[in-house]
């Protein structure tokens, strides 16, 4: 293990390199590009034995990932925003065929108006595509999660694709110190991919991606749903393995509580803004206020149990959404209200950070200040 100052995009690329995918189909898009640029360098320098495919669109990138993974090898790609939108139909095919592809999403707003900056509207628009969705806070977590995503996706009780979402620019372009595990260390936690149901073998011909008639389709979808729920345990397990081997854990893997034990008020958020929330929690704690933060690290599968558990005893909860379900409210807010519908606490929703609008400590202070009165949704401009 070495510790170096690197860009979060490079941290993702290193996590992927250490996981040694066989195929990386790629199409560049801001702010994801640095990830595949680094991977291309590793391949060019002979450090990574991987086939990189330069395809003509994100739709093709995901299609090629499906094709590669269906032959029985590990594949990875990365995208953002419009690229993810263009991949949309193939995302559902990847999960329906139960292909454990792993993808980094450098979260960026969806147009219009054209915007290259961060929010979560892209990955939330594919919330129901049947992928595991991780949201990471730091460059270190980005590296660790890139590896864990393969561990979880490929587990035989899961066999589903996984997305590692990291905030575009706000995290992708940040340089900070990162512990980089060695290949030997990663080889101990991530075994080589061995396809169990989807592979290309002339001696054992199978058909993949066939029609699912009404008498089979619904049963397959139930299996897919159950597999995504199974991922919860494997996510916890892989987080525990990392804590054990590398001394780095992120809560129980699904959520990461910060100063929640005796908290009366807390804020829930996803991704890099959690760092800024920690700073404000520290500051308010110094003033004697009983506040905390609950980071949702995995949004799909939804960690409902953990949310119920950690919010016990709270008087007020604020949910920060970096996206909005137009005509309704923030999606995280909706889902947490639903999880806590019979609990006695006020729950407020806040829409923040859309299209790269900076979320400052002042915004977070304002959230903590307004957790007593119930409002449906407030926009933090």
């Amino acid at each position: 293990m070495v510790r170096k100052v690197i860009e979060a995009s490079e941290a993702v690329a290193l996590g992927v390199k250490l996981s040694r995918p066989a195929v990386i189909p790629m199409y560049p898009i801001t702010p994801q590009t640095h990830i595949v640029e680094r991977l291309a360098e590793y391949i060019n320098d002979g450090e990574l034995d991987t086939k990189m495919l330069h395809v003509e669109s994100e739709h093709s990138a995901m299609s090629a990932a499906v094709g590669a993974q269906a032959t029985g090898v590990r594949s990875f790609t990365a995208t953002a925003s419009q690229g993810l939108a263009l991949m949309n139909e193939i995302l559902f095919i990847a999960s329906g065929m139960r292909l454990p592809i792993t993808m980094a999403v450098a979260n960026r707003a969806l147009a219009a108006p054209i915007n290259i900056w961060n929010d979560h509207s892209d990955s939330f628009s594919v919330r129901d595509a049947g992928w595991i969705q991780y949201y990471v806070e730091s460059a270190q977590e980005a590296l660790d999660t890139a590896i864990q995503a393969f561990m979880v996706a490929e587990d035989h009780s899961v066999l589903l694709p996984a997305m590692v979402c990291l905030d575009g620019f706000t995290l992708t372009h940040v340089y900070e110190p990162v512990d980089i595990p060695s290949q030997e260390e990663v080889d101990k936690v991530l075994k080589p991919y061995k396809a169990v149901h989807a592979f290309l073998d002339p001696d054992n011909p199978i058909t993949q991606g066939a029609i699912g008639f009404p008498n089979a389709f619904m049963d397959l979808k139930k299996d897919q749903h159950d597999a995504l729920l199974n991922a919860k345990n494997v996510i916890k397990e892989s987080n525990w393995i990392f804590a054990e081997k590398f001394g780095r854990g992120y809560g129980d893997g699904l959520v990461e509580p910060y100063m929640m034990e005796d908290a009366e008020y807390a804020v829930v958020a996803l991704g890099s803004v959690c760092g800024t929330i920690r700073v404000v929690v520290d500051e308010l704690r110094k003033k004697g206020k009983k506040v905390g933060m609950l980071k949702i690290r995995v949004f799909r599968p939804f960690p409902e149990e953990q949310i119920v558990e950690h919010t016990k005893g709270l008087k007020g909860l604020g949910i920060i959404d970096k996206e909005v379900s137009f005509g309704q409210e923030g999606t995280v807010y909706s889902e947490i209200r639903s999880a806590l519908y019979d609990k006695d606490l006020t729950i407020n929703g806040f829409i923040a950070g859309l299209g790269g609008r900076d979320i400052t400590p002042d915004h977070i202070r304002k959230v903590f200040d307004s957790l007593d009165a119930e409002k449906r949704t407030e926009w933090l401009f």
Partner: protein
Amino acid sequence: MIEIRIHGRGGQGAVTTGQIMAIAAFHDGKESQTFPNFGVERAGAPVMAFARISDEVINLRSQVYKPQVVLVLDSSLVEAVNVTEGLKDNGTIIINTNKTAEELGIKGSFDIHTIDATSITVGVFGKPIVNTPMLGAFAKVTGLMSLESLKKAIDDKFVYAKGKKIADLNKVAIEKVYSETR
């Protein structure tokens, strides 16, 4: 925690300056973080990068609004943008210029350090490459990093990417700027 803002022009290397600053501080045993002001950069347009240096883990991920130190790579930026924005009284400004602090006419009570990095670097590289050399001035004025760590950071960033010769020239320029900064 010290917060730093770097002003430059697109193509001048302000973002790289931040990166080397963060790597050097890290070599001195500190925690560090740097990121560009995310814009749609064009060559020559005013750009910014931010950095944080601390003895503790840096969790804050908002932009830098109240820097303690401002590093200005090009004195023409003083007229183009408000380089003192958010800078507290007695805050530090380090600026590449052949003028004196008085001549620049920066309003407010700040600790202004000037260095003619353009002339020095023309002498070293044959052209004005001021971004990394200005870190010599930064190290001297702030004491936030040692010259040794700065040179090590230059090697990290340049030996592989641009070759040993470029890395060595940068180190020569940094040393010259360091020794001439007052």
